[in-house]
């Protein structure tokens, strides 16, 4: 009898799993119990081949492997390493004492190689929370595992090397890397993060952005739209949702893609949250374990509900909303998205997380993103503002935008209209554009002010303050509410809308460096809220 430990993931939550192996006299065979799925059931054959090809003896007796808690569904191939070590410990070829207190993660190749698995970061974090001080992971996953502080991370390229380390053999020790994890350990800003999505996220285009201005997209590229550039700055500073409306070719998509360039890099806690989600999704780039750039996620409008909020059979994967956590979710051609998808976004917009329920388990993914919508004024995309003749009937036009209104547009704090600009206007605007790095500094300063004000609360951004606390602790200055009260009397804005306008006015105050929003800020926030939807 021997026991090892591993971690089962449900979403980004890890649960410790005990792997017990018992070897009895009887016909040779391996029995795997404890709610394994198909991939895990196949572990039997993988593990046998891997053990034999690592030069170990396969116990020619009756082996029972139990995974407990038995009620928790266990999926995937991450238990291979734990099961193999458990069997060999039960057979007496690995000292039981060495196995104690170690969490094993990793898939086995038939040749005995240890292959990386998804979700190493959240699994290791769960192991640390459960009191383990040592984790053994496949070598490629070791930098990711080392992000969790207070652990010895053992990176092994093969099962043979891992077994050698457990036995304390000197020559095996050279193949295995052991590092103490913790703050600063192997943390490099992730600059190379670019593309990669699979499973339900396949339709999801992901791209990161480098903070530097050299060559990459820059806010200064957006010519002729000063109001829109300012709106992007406001949204970045306060975490407010943004809608961009206007005829094609005026720079809506360009602007959205440049929002990450003015967002500050993630702090360590946020970076770990984001990395954990991307680790489970399998979209983490190899070699740069910690994602410090705010993610930008732009799903195509044909994306399904599962691709946006998460789901999938077997292992539940996070969707675009979660992949954009602490970053920016951009819905281009927003009215073209299916009603289902747009409605499904309401939950994360309200609560900042997505809950995916499946038989026997629920997965929670954090999804606190800045929503950016882009839309043409009508399906023919010519629109009255462009000067070209629109071929849509008024009904068509109304129906097109009605898909956005109601559930979504009510939660969008800043609505800007893009106007077609003449060549002369483009040229004259050139002197007024600012590079992303300059705007990013203002955004960061404004975020710092907000963070200082909110330091005794769980929130960090103005957009996150709940309505009750907003009214109680963060009321604007005297007289500042007059424009809002008037708009409410006129029926132009709802009570929820007033809260949203007040949040934006706090962000404007942070950007302006004033202690409290005055009538200047509330007026402009009301302007931004009414935006194009208020016409």
């Amino acid at each position: 009898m021997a026991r090892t430990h591993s971690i089962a993931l449900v979403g980004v939550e890890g649960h410790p799993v005990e792997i017990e192996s018992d070897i009895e006299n009887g016909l040779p065979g391996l029995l795997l119990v404890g709610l394994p799925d198909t991939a895990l059931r196949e572990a039997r054959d993988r593990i046998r081949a891997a053990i034999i090809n690592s030069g170990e003896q396969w116990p020619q007796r009756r082996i029972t492997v139990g995974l407990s808690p038995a009620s928790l569904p266990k999926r995937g191939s991450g238990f291979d390493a734990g099961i193999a070590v458990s069997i060999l410990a039960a057979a007496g070829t690995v000292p039981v004492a060495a196995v104690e207190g170690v969490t094993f993660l990793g898939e086995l190749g038939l040749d005995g190689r240890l292959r990386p698995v998804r979700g190493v970061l959240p699994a290791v974090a769960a192991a640390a929370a459960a009191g383990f001080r040592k984790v053994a992971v496949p070598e490629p996953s070791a930098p990711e595992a080392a992000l969790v502080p207070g652990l010895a991370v053992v990176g092994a390229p093969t099962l043979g090397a891992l077994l050698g380390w457990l036995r304390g053999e000197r020559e095996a020790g050279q193949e295995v890397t052991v590092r103490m994890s913790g703050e600063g350990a192997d943390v490099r800003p992730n600059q190379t993060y670019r593309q990669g999505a699979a499973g339900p996220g396949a339709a999801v285009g992901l791209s990161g952005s480098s903070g530097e201005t050299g060559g990459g997209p820059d806010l200064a590229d957006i010519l002729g739209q000063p109001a829109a550039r300012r709106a992007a700055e406001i949204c970045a500073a306060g975490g407010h949702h943004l809608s961009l409306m206007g005829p094609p070719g005026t720079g809506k998509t360009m602007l959205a893609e440049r929002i990450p360039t003015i967002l500050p890099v993630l702090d360590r806690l946020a970076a770990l949250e984001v990395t954990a989600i991307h680790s489970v999704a399998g979209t983490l780039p190899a070699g740069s374990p910690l994602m410090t750039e705010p993610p930008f996620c732009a799903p195509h409008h044909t994306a399904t509900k599962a691709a946006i909020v998460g789901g999938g059979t077997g292992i539940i994967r996070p969707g675009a909303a979660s992949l954009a956590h602490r970053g920016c979710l951009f819905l281009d051609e927003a009215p073209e998205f299916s009603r289902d998808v747009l409605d499904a976004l309401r939950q994360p917009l309200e609560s900042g997380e997505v809950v995916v329920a499946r038989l026997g388990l629920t997965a929670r993914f954090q999804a606190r993103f800045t929503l950016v919508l882009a839309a043409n004024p009508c399906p023919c995309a010519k629109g009255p503002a462009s000067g070209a003749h629109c071929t849509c009937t008024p009904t068509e036009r109304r129906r097109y935008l009605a898909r956005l209104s109601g559930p979504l547009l009510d939660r969008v704090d800043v609505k800007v209209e893009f106007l077609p600009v003449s060549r002369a206007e483009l040229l004259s605007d050139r002197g007024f554009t600012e590079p992303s790095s300059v705007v990013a500094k203002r955004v960061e300063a404004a975020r710092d002010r907000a963070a200082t004000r909110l330091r005794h609360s769980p929130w960090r951004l103005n957009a996150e303050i709940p309505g009750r606390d907003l009214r109680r602790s963060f009321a604007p200055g005297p007289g500042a509410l007059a424009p809002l009260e008037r708009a409410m009397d006129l029926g132009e804005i709802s009570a929820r809308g007033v809260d949203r306008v007040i949040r934006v006015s706090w962000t404007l105050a942070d950007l302006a460096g004033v202690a409290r929003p005055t009538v200047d800020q509330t007026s402009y926030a009301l302007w931004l809220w009414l935006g194009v939807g208020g016409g």
Partner: protein
Amino acid sequence: MNAKNNLGRRGEQVAVEYLERAGLRILDRNWRCTEGEIDIVAAERQVLVICEVKTRSSTQYGSPLEAITRSKRARLRRLAVRWLVAHGVLFDEMRIDVIGLVRDESGHYQLEHVRGVG
């Protein structure tokens, strides 16, 4: 027609004088583009103020402020952005004000100034 236009122009002059007294800088008057006209463009501290002036000779057809409808204000917001682009100026904040003027029999104007209507 002429009388009506005269009344409007007189009213705008009254409004401009009032705004200057109130400490605003007048940047532009009767600025036109293809989408419409802005009566007064002014600046108060770092705020761009787009001002719509409505003058009436009586309140028989309702208060002048009532005439500033939602769509009118939406158009003003759009015009404001147009004005910014055309003049290449940047402002931290923007707002729309409405000045309503009613002329009484003695030829005096009653002025009402509403700040930040959108």
